[in-house]
């Protein structure tokens, strides 16, 4: 079994639907994986001192899902082919407190689960084609600055 034929399960999505923690947990649960790490990103009520009422997430769905799959395969190659992944980024207008991102990782041991989870969120910030337009209580909006995408 090489890196391109892993035993662990992977599901990725860029979606307008509400994210589903229970499905993520059910997907990744495995009797040989005793450590499960779920990262949830939510819309925060304040950013750089301004009161946020909602965030409009724009994303390139086809390329984005391809990149999420690549990231999970990279994590399996580095930390274990038997790890399972569920990564979903939500798109559209989300109110404060709503879930924008789920990254769920399960592994036989906790160290690899923490490392893979952290790797995924950091790489998502650098490589996933998603953009945020913040909508402020004062009524104006702003597309946030971000990380320049590099070809790999």
């Amino acid at each position, binding site marked *: 079994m090489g890196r391109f034929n892993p035993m662990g399960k992977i599901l990725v999505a860029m979606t307008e639907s509400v994210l589903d923690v229970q499905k993520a947990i059910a997907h990744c649960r495995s009797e040989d994986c005793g450590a499960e790490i779920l990262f949830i*990103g939510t819309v925060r009520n304040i950013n750089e001192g301004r009161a946020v009422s909602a965030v409009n*997430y*724009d*994303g*390139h769905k*086809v*390329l984005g899902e*391809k990149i999420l799959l690549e990231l999970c395969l990279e994590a399996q190659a580095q930390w274990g082919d038997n790890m399972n992944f569920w990564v979903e*980024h939500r798109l559209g207008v989300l109110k404060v407190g709503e879930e*924008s*991102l789920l990254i769920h990782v399960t592994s036989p041991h906790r160290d690899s689960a923490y490392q893979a989870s952290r790797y995924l*969120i950091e790489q*998502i*910030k*650098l*490589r*996933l*084609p*998603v*953009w*945020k*337009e913040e909508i402020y209580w004062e009524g104006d909006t702003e*597309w*946030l*600055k*971000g*990380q*320049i*995408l*590099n*070809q*790999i």
Partner: protein
Amino acid sequence: MINVNISLYGAFRRLGVQQLSLEISDESTVADLRDCMAKYLENIDANISVHLVKTSAFATDERVLKEEDRVAGLKCLAILPPVCGG
């Protein structure tokens, strides 16, 4: 000359359209396309900075493109501003 459609994301949504249609030469690279797009936006006096065009990547549905990639024959082109998911 060929016609290319470029899908717009993020701050480029301010242009109010889903795609831009630009005419470039058959030999154009991504770097040429970037210059063409910057000039187009200056001409229409869009509220989009040249800096944003310079810091954006071009991509297909499959991958992020390199500056030297030829544009002719590529499908589903898009311009991707600096990203900020999460």
